């Protein structure tokens, strides 16, 4: 619904216009066609530190000792505005003698009258110096944080490289020593140590591929770990198939390390003891099942099993000790079963049953 301003004559209209101009918090000018100041807002005088006597009736460019004689403003008023009715957000970056460096956004509007060839230009200023400074600071911060992120990536990559190289050197030393020593028992221990280094490395490689995510998919991880063990441990003289069957689930990397080392120990153990004589279709099965918070790992083989009267192992049962320690770390129990079908080790974590409340 159209409304009518409460003015009865030209004088009242002028009064209203002046009141509007003085109410606007941002600096505001009304210019004639020759760019003389017809009216300036109170905020214009306050902000640019000029007084009305030396402003009204003056040419804009001559105002305040020529502080508005700005090339960008000339472009706006003399080139852009004659072709258009309005121009918004025109940015002027200028050093003002009284107030220093300022960035202003200018809105300009031509006011044309139907029955006259005169014209007025309304010019509003918005000081965006602070805003621009904050924006620049923000952009610089973003750039800096992006630079830091890039540096971190490079450092991480370099660290990965060094860790991998160092592990490779350790693994190489162990294996070269194992080949050089004459004692079977020493060779045996060195090969074991080598394999443990490789198992930790397998976890590391898998974690690197997950790009810093602290949870890894257990099935894929066990599969790769066992494939690596197969490549390095299984020789031509006794082929052994290692199969992995796992439920799908994510596990924390710390648990993956322990679980991976347990699997490594049990597979090494099976490869060493399960097939003393050549056997066709020799196999080791790794199974990992998840039941809510509980999980079970079973590593079984179809080898000769474990004889009750078997003499102590050459490694003094180190593998068993390691498995027991790692299982304890995972809050899991280890059980072993032997029979004509082979040998199986079960490592299971079963949450403790909720204690029953007893009546007094």
């Amino acid at each position, binding site marked *: 619904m159209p409304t009518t301003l409460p003015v009865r004559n030209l004088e009242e209209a002028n009064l209203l216009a002046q009141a509007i101009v003085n109410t606007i918090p941002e600096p505001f000018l009304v210019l004639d066609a020759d760019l003389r100041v017809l009216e300036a807002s109170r905020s214009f005088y306050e902000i640019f530190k000029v007084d009305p006597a030396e402003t009204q009736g003056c040419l804009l460019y001559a105002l305040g000792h020529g502080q508005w004689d700005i090339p960008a403003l000339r472009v706006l008023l003399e080139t852009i505005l004659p072709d258009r009715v309005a121009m918004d957000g025109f940015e002027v970056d200028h050093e003002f003698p009284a107030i220093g460096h300022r960035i202003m956004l200018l809105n300009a509007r031509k006011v044309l009258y139907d029955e006259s060839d005169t014209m007025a230009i309304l010019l509003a200023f918005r000081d965006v110096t602070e805003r621009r400074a904050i924006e620049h600071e923000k952009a610089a911060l973003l750039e800096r944080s992006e630079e830091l992120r890039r540096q971190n990536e490079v450092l991480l*990559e370099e660290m*990965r*490289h*060094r*860790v*991998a*190289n160092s*592990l*490779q*050197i*350790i*693994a*190489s*030393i162990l*294996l*070269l020593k194992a*080949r050089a020593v004459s004692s079977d028992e020493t060779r045996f221990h060195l090969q074991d140590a080598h394999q443990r*280094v*490789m198992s930790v*490395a397998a976890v590391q*490689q898998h974690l*690197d*591929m997950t790009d810093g995510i602290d949870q890894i998919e257990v099935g894929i991880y066990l*599969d790769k770990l066992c*494939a*690596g063990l*197969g*490549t*390095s441990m*299984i*020789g*031509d003289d006794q*082929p*052994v*198939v*290692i*199969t*992995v069957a796992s439920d799908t689930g994510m596990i924390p990397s710390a648990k993956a390390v322990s679980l991976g080392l347990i699997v490594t120990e049990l597979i090494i153990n099976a490869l060493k003891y399960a097939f003393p004589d050549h056997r066709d279709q020799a196999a080791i099965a790794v199974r990992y099942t998840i039941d809510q918070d509980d999980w079970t790992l079973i590593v079984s083989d179809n080898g000769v099993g474990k004889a009750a009267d078997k003499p102590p192992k050459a490694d003094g049962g180190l593998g068993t000790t390691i498995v027991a320690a790692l299982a304890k770390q995972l809050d899991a129990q280890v059980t072993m079963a032997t029979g004509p079908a082979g040998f199986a080790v079960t490592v299971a974590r079963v949450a403790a049953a909720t204690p029953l409340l007893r009546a007094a």
Partner: protein
Amino acid sequence: MPDRDETIVRHGGMKRLTDDVRILVVEDEALIADLVISGLEEARYGVATAQDAEAAIAMLEEDDAALRAVVTDINLAAGGLTGWDVARRARELVADFPVIYMSGASTSEWTANGVPNSLIIAKPFAIGQIVTAVSQLLNKASAIVPD
């Protein structure tokens, strides 16, 4: 999940090309080089070695007919040429030259810098992985190029 049948074939019944085949091993870390050399020699491959990319490229240029594959580390010396450069030069000399990279860095760089149809083995590796990779590429090369 890898094919288990394939796994057993690879581990148990691998056919190896040997004897007159020379593999160029490029590695600046002597202990790692020793391991790779001993593994390849054990598999009855002839081995030539270089400690940096410049020496490796010189060997490829002088002796490219006798070398049949290159196994190279990537970061060989600060500021110098890399294993990527060695492989590129090898491919300039022989279009389908078998290339195996040994890398401690992430394999994503391989996509950007590696030559086509190459293999990358992440460090730390078991020596069996290098021998298998060499064997695979040489078998492939001999299947493509008739004697």
